[in-house]
């Protein structure tokens, strides 16, 4: 299988500190990568570097064989991310919050409805974001992934604050995404089940280097 996402010799420097270096991996369609490692090992930094928010100190990221730095906008159209912050506006309703993010990436209202349904938020569609619980806000953040198409999902501790039903819904959504040829890179402490995923232990990678 040819790799859709290929990372070679990636390094990240924050301030004076080398967070990680010489990170290599390649993911083909339908494959998943689980990032593990102790706090501060650079899981979030790696995800943010993949998303293009952090300039890599060295190395290259290629999508379908082309360096993403050459056309960052085309790459960004392929990527959806859920980081620590949920990006939920308290004064907008749940549906309005989600519709805005969907519109930015060419999702439509039908997709938004299905995404809310899938994460058990349909009942709360007209409730303002400000009254949601932490877990409900997290569900809404994850619903963004389903509300618009993207080939690569980047997730940073997606299951934090989620209840068991929501974790199951998330696992099912990831499985469907992969079945459709999607890629997933997720930093987690093992609270979501991913079938035959690749693993990258950032703590070990640094120790070896």
């Amino acid at each position: 299988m040819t790799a859709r996402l290929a990372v070679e010799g990636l390094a990240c420097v924050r301030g004076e500190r080398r967070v990680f270096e010489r990170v290599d991996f390649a993911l083909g369609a339908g494959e998943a990568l689980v990032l593990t490692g102790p706090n501060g090992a650079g899981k979030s930094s790696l995800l943010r570097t993949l998303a293009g928010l952090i300039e890599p100190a060295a190395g290259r990221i290629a999508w379908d064989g082309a360096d993403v730095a050459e056309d960052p906008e085309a790459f960004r159209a392929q990527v959806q991310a859920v980081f620590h912050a949920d990006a939920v506006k308290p004064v907008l309703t749940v549906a309005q919050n989600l519709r805005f993010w969907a519109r930015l990436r060419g999702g439509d209202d039908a997709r938004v409805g299905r995404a809310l349904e899938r994460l058990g938020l349909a009942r709360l569609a007209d409730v303002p974001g400000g009254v949601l619980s932490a877990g409900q806000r997290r569900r809404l953040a994850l619903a963004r992934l389903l509300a618009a198409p993207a080939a690569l999902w980047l997730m940073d501790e997606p299951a934090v604050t989620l209840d068991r039903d929501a974790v199951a819904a998330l696992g099912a959504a990831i499985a469907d995404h992969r079945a459709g040829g999607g890629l997933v890179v997720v930093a987690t402490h093992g609270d979501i089940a991913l079938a035959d995923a690749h693993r990258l232990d950032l703590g070990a990678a640094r120790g070896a280097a």
Partner: protein
Amino acid sequence: MIGTFAAIVGRDVTLAVRRGGDAATVVAFFVVVVTLFPFGVGPEPNLLARIAPGVLWVAALLAATLSLDRVFRADLEDGSLELLALAPCPLVVTVLAKVLAHWLTTGLPLLLAAPVLAILLNLPWDGFEALIGALALGTPSLSLIGAVGAALTLGVRRAGVLVALLVLPLAVPVLTFGVAAIEAALTGQTAAPHLMILSGFLLGALALAPWAAAAAVRLALD
């Protein structure tokens, strides 16, 4: 890209209106500052008419600066800004949309309130046209310059005053020619050259500020 632009403008305007306070606070601040002057300098009509152009401009400037900090900060704090930066459109488009939304919720209300306050300050009728023209050209420049200041101070907590310190000196040319346009109209001359210079500033700011602000936002997210 136009759809993205419209979506961001619509969202930011909706947020500003829903939060209520924002646009209303800016106009209320403008009104209060201007109405303080007759109390401070005395109700002498000729004196008020003499200082009216300057007072209106300085008050508008301060009121517009007051709201700059919120252009990017709220989105930075709740994580929306990084998602906006990940959207498949150039960050410059996002920045420009946020600037337009800022102008619609602060510059435009100031523009509408200014003629009423001009009456209060006894500004002669001859100056009204120039006042509105100059504010219409000057306030978008302030939103653009201000966005750069707001983006540059994203790394600083409670940067409200810092933004003002950065932006107000840069706004001096707008202030100078904005006041000069009104004074020209009051002395029977044409305000056109001053308005043209203000247009020049606006075009210059439009060409440079969004790129500078986008670069500063990228730095803040790194």
